[in-house]
C-alpha cells in the first residue's frame, strides 16, 4: 500500500485545446462527460448513500450499537431482528456497520482534507515561488518520503499513543508530502505558461495572480489526486484501529470491528468479513470515482 507518486500527465489538460461540441466552458464539458460515465455515477451514488446513512444513523431507527447481549452472540446473517447477525458481544451488526461508517469515513476524509489544505498550500507556494523556497519545502517533504507510509503512520501513532485524534494527526502527516508533491508539480507546470508571465507583466500582485491564474488551473488535478487518497486513508485508519493504535473499543469502527471479530472467524467467517467488505466497497468507490473524475477532466480522452 504505497502512495504512488502521481504521473506528470495530471496537468496535461491545461495545454490541450478543449474539444467543444455545444458545451461552452471547461467545467460544463467535464460535467457532460461525467454524465455519460455510469461507473463513476454509480460509485458516487454508493458513496452518497454511505455518507448519508452514516450522518443520519441516529434517526434511522437502528438498534443500539453499544447494547450487548450474552445470549444473542454471533447470530448468522438473516436472523430475525438482526438482518446482518450479531457480533461477538451480541450487538446488532447492521447498526454497528452503519454507525461504524461515521468514524471510518470521518477518519478517511478528515486527514485528506487537512493534508490537502496544508500540503496544497506548501506545494503551490513551492511551485509558484520556485528557487530556494521550492528547494527547502520539497527537500523537507523528501525526508517524509524516506519512510514507507504505513510504517510512518504506525510509528507516529505508536509514539503519540492510541486514540482517534492521534490517528487523524498521524494520517495527516503521512498525506501532506504526496499532496505537496502533486501540487508542486502542477503549479510548476502552470507557472511556465505565458499567461502567468503576462499577468506578472501587468504588475498585478502575486496573490491575485495565484488566485485568478494559478488556482483555477491546479485545483482540479490536486482534488482528483486527493480523492484517490481517501481510500488509502480509510484503509490506513482501519489498519491502525486493527493494531489497537486507533479508535478504542467499544466505539464502532470498521477496522476495530475486524479486529474484535477475528476470533469469530472459525465460527462465522462471513460475519467476520463484513467490516472488511464495507472498507472494500468504500475504498473501491472512492478509487473508481477518482479515476472517473480524472478521465472526465482529461480533455485528451
Amino acid at each position, binding site marked *: 500500500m504505497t502512495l504512488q507518486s502521481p504521473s506528470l500527465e495530471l496537468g496535461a489538460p491545461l495545454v490541450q485545446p478543449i474539444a467543444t461540441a455545444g458545451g461552452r466552458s471547461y467545467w460544463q464539458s467535464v460535467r457532460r462527460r461525467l454524465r455519460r460515465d455510469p461507473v463513476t455515477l454509480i460509485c458516487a451514488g454508493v458513496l452518497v448513500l454511505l455518507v448519508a446513512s452514516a450522518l443520519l444513523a441516529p434517526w434511522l431507527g437502528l438498534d443500539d450499537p453499544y447494547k450487548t447481549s450474552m445470549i444473542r452472540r454471533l447470530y448468522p446473517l438473516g436472523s430475525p431482528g438482526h438482518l446482518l447477525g450479531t457480533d461477538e458481544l451480541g450487538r446488532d451488526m447492521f447498526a454497528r456497520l452503519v454507525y461504524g461508517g461515521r468514524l471510518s469515513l470521518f477518519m478517511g476524509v478528515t486527514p485528506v482534507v487537512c493534508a490537502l489544505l496544508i500540503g496544497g498550500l506548501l506545494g503551490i507556494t513551492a511551485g509558484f515561488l520556485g528557487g530556494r523556497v521550492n528547494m527547502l519545502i520539497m527537500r523537507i517533504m523528501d525526508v517524509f518520503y524516506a519512510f514507507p507510509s504505513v510504517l510512518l503512520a504506525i510509528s507516529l501513532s505508536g509514539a503519540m499513543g492510541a486514540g482517534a485524534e492521534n490517528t487523524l494527526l498521524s494520517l495527516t502527516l503521512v498525506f501532506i508530502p504526496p499532496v505537496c508533491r502533486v501540487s508542486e508539480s502542477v503549479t510548476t507546470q502552470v507557472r511556465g505558461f*505565458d499567461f502567468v508571465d503576462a499577468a506578472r507583466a501587468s*504588475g498585478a500582485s502575486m496573490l491575485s495572480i495565484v488566485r485568478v491564474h494559478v488556482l*483555477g488551473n491546479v485545483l482540479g488535478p490536486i482534488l482528483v489526486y486527493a480523492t484517490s487518497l481517501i481510500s488509502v486513508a480509510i484503509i490506513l485508519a482501519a489498519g491502525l484501529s486493527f493494531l489497537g493504535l486507533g479508535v478504542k473499543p467499544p466505539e464502532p469502527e470498521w477496522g476495530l470491528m475486524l479486529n474484535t471479530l477475528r476470533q469469530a472467524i472459525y465460527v462465522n467467517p462471513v460475519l467476520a468479513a463484513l467490516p472488511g467488505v464495507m472498507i472494500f466497497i468504500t475504498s473501491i468507490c472512492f478509487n473508481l470515482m477518482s479515476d472517473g473524475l480524472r478521465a472526465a477532466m482529461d480533455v485528451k480522452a
Partner: protein
Amino acid sequence: MDSVLPVEDRGGPAQPLLLASGLRKHFPVGGGLLGRGRKVVRAVDDLTLSVAKGETLGVVGESGCGKSTVARLLIRLLKPDRGTMVLDGDPVDEPHGITVNELRRQVQMVFQDSYASLNPRLTIAETLAFAPKAHGLPAAEARDRVRDLLAKVGLEPDTYAERYPHELSGGQRQRVNIARALALRPRLVILDEAVSALDKSVEAQVLNMLVDLKTELSLTYLFISHDLNVVQYLSDRVLVMYLGKIVELGPVEAIYGDPQHPYTQALLSARPSMDPRKRTKEAPIQGDPPNPIDPPSGCRFRTRCPFAEDVCARVEPPLADTGRQEVACHMRVAGSGHSKAVA
C-alpha cells in the same frame, strides 16, 4: 491610485522613451552543488539600446541569439544581472526613479504563443479585465474598457467577450493578446514574435491592425521577429543581434539597403527572393551559431565569418558609428588592424 489613466509624455519628443544601457543576463546551467563552479549561458551581454518616442524598433537575429531575453529584461520578467534602464527620464527600480510595477504599466508585451498566453479557464472579458482591475479600476469601468479594447482590435464585443480562448482561432487569440497588452494604456509595446505563428494572410491583417493602433494610440513598438520582410515593413530602425550582442543598428533603409556587417549581409542574402532568376544557390553562412555558454573570443561572429582574421579573435569590435548606422566589425573601423579595414 489613478494609475489606470494614460501616462502623459514628460521629457518631450527628443528624449528616448526607453534607454537601456549595459544590460546583461547570464543564465547558470547545471554545475556543481550549491552553485559553485557553474557554467553560464551568456544570453545577453552588455547590450545598450534606446527606443525613441513613436518609433518602431525592429530586432532581428537567429534563434537563440537572445531576442526574447531582451524582451523579458525590458519588461523585467527577468531581472538583469547588470545594467540600468531609464523610462522617459525616470530610472527604473532605483531610489529616485520609478518602480518596476510602474514600468510594467507603461511597457507591455505580446507573447508569441497565442494559446499559452491566454488562461484557458477565463473568458476573454475576464482575461482583459484582469490587469485594469489589479490596478484598481472598478468593475463597471473595467467592463467598458474590455468592450472598448475588443472593438479596437477588431473583435465584436458582444460576440467575443464571453468566449473562452479555445473557441477562438489563432488570429483572434492574438488579437486578444494585443488587446490585453493595451489594457493598461501603455506607451511601449514589446511584440515578441507576435505574428510569427500566424498564417500569412492573418499575419498581414494583424500587422496592418498594429500599424493602425500605433497611430491611433500614439504607441511605440519594439518589434522582435526572425522574419526580415515583416521587420522591414514595420520598422523605422532595425537592431541586428548575434549571440547576445548588437552587431548592427540603424535606420531600416540603411540596414536593408547597405548592410555593413558580414552577419547582416548574410542574413539578408538568405531571404527568399521574389525573383526566380535570383535564386539563392548556397547558404550564405554555414552551420549553427556557436554555443553561448562559451562564446568565441573577440568578435563572436568570427567562427562563421568569411573575412575573419587574427585581430577578430583578439579584440572585441566596438559598436562604431559609420555615418548612417552603427556596426560592430573591425572591417568598418579605420586602423583596427584588419586587412580590409577602411582607410
